[in-house]
């Protein structure tokens, strides 16, 4: 059986590092000037946000194991990519996440209990807070990318100062929709940010089997749009890259394709067994020990005297409480009633749905067994 023995993976190999944008190295040292663009409060916000998401993600995996949640897609290891990108947006920007980007959605304003509801299979699980523009997670691969072109196009037509960001994985770059989205965005110069988290795998298929292009960012050239390859575990680099993309977009310079190199430590979803296709322990240990996004920022913050273990413990405790509050809210939320499945199929309803809803009500009233 063929397994990817190299813990760094071809798509993430040393040979590619020079064309990758780094700011904060794994030892927590700044190797490229940040030009006073990231102040202490932003740094702390970045770290705390990553800590919140890591706590949330681990809790979710546990809830799935306890049978309190359905199949779940973990993102542990990708916190810098999700937090860094989301923090670089403004409140009114449009976000198109996938099933793995609820971290980014939370940072952009989605409420924790809603995310729980989604994974608990509640009909109300993809509703975003009033006034926010966070779309439901896209389950089909790459299809949301074209929507982000459309919203951005409309922003441009209406003269609104907003960008649209589409999240996707490395596997998504094989789908036709990826290419159509980049092409449209290029032609109409839409303020769209295409944010790829290249975690090296599309379920079991490693990037080298997915694509023969060396990088994803290089494909920007084919559409004559801006392309950047960035260390996705370096939150400073991610934030600065997305900030620049936002500025480019708002100043009329069009879309940016960002390839953030990262890694998810866990399985593709809680229904997947990664041991079949990769040396799971070896690869995860390598990434955890050498490239973890939280560790490197923490090292930096410690050195600068901005953060200590006491704060860390206190914050984790607060986050656990916050998450528990949201979990309770989600679990106490009135369960989806079967008759609600007929709501919102159309804006106005229709005779056939009314009849079918009535039929189901009758069945439920008579206590017909399943």
């Amino acid at each position: 059986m063929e397994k990817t023995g190299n813990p760094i993976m071809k798509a993430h190999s040393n040979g590619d590092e020079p064309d990758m944008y780094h700011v904060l190295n794994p030892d927590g040292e700044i190797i490229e000037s940040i030009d006073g663009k990231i102040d202490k409060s932003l740094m702390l916000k970045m770290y705390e946000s990553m800590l919140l998401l890591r706590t949330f993600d681990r809790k979710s995996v546990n809830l799935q194991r306890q049978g309190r949640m359905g199949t779940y897609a973990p993102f542990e290891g990708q916190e810098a990519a999700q937090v860094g990108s989301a923090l670089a947006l403004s409140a009114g920007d449009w976000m198109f996440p996938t099933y793995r980007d609820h971290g980014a959605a939370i940072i952009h304003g989605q409420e924790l209990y809603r995310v729980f509801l989604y994974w608990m299979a509640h009909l109300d699980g993809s509703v975003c807070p009033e006034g926010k523009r966070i779309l439901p997670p896209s389950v089909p691969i790459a299809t949301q990318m074209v929507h982000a072109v459309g919203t951005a196009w409309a922003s441009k037509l209406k003269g609104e100062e907003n960008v649209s960001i589409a999240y996707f994985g490395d596997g998504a770059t094989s789908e036709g929709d990826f290419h159509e989205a980049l092409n449209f965005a290029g032609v109409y110069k839409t303020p769209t940010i295409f944010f790829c988290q290249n975690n090296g795998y599309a379920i079991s298929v490693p990037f080298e089997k997915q694509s023969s292009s060396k990088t994803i960012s290089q494909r920007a050239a084919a559409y004559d749009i801006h392309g950047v390859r960035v260390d996705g575990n370096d939150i400073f680099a991610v934030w600065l890259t997305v900030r620049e993309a936002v500025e480019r977009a708002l100043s009329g310079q069009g879309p940016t394709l960002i390839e953030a190199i990262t890694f998810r430590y866990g399985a593709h979803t809680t229904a997947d067994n990664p041991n079949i296709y990769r040396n799971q322990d070896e690869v995860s240990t390598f990434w955890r020990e050498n490239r973890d996004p939280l560790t490197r920022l923490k090292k930096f913050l410690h050195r600068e005297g901005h953060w200590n273990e006491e704060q860390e413990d206190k914050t984790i405790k607060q986050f656990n409480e916050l998450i528990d509050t949201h979990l309770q809210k989600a679990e106490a939320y009135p369960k989806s009633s079967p008759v609600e499945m007929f709501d919102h199929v159309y804006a106005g309803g229709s005779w056939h749905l009314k009849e079918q809803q009535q039929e189901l009500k009758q069945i439920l009233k008579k206590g017909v067994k399943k």
Partner: protein
Amino acid sequence: MGKSVTMLQAITEAMDQKLDHDERVMILGEDIGVNGGVFRSTEGLYEKYGRDRVVDTPLAEAGIIGSAIGLSLNGMVPIVEIQFLAFIYPGFEQLVSHAARMRYRTRGQFGVPLVIRTPYGAGIRGPELHSESVETFFAHTPGLKVVAPSNPYDAKGLLISAIEDPDPVIFLEPTKLYRAFKEEVPDEMYRIPIGQAKVVQEGSDLTIFAWGAMLREALNAAKKIEKEKGWKCEVVDLRTLYPLDRDTIVQSIKKTGRALIVHEAHKTAGLGAEIISIINDEALIYLKAPIKRVTGFDVPVPPFSIEDHYLPTVERVKQGIVETISF
């Protein structure tokens, strides 16, 4: 000789034997190689036949189905796995505009022998878009054949026929039944003809037409009704959804005079409507009661917390039987 296997094992065995016997056969899909498929239906085949015959493709359904069309045109026999039915849509264009029409457009010069296998249907507590039952899209497309087995024995025999069929076949595998039960399956490469329904239970009072996972609901309901009311239902497993086995449908109606159709697909324009039309055309005068449908509702398959209420249940089927017989 034979052995007791699940539907999943029967499907793997069919592919294994065809790969072994015919060098032109190959499998293409996402995660089907090293990973052995997300449901493990291709388990062991990559190791046995190698990466050129069991191919982990890029994540691109149009690419997979489109290149399979070309492979098939040029003499290969591709079996395509689409990970879940709802993810076939990026490749839908290739399927309906090209695979289905190639023979017609070339006046028989080129055919596209090709099998597209995909898990489908609800009842597995899957995430969004993992439980759809949209067989109508394919049964509405001239040039395609649509097959949906309901047990391990049929799955193996039908899949072998599908692989040997000169036309493109959509092979819908009821996910809920993959591991639901085992059944004796012969070791040899036997075939079940595409286009033939099967009377799985004889009866005289009413015919239930079903397929896939709903066949079990139909049989259970028939059993219960017989116990409770003494009515004998005939149960027909359609097995091939396009083209439908008109003769078996009509013969059964001539015998029972009543029909109930059970499918988990949405009601509107579901295959039930087509079956009713066939009966109207061919056997109207034999009918003693209007034909009823027990189906999934006309709503997107809801999240798993309430998906059981979307699906036809034994109770709903029983109720349909009662209403039809006591009309």
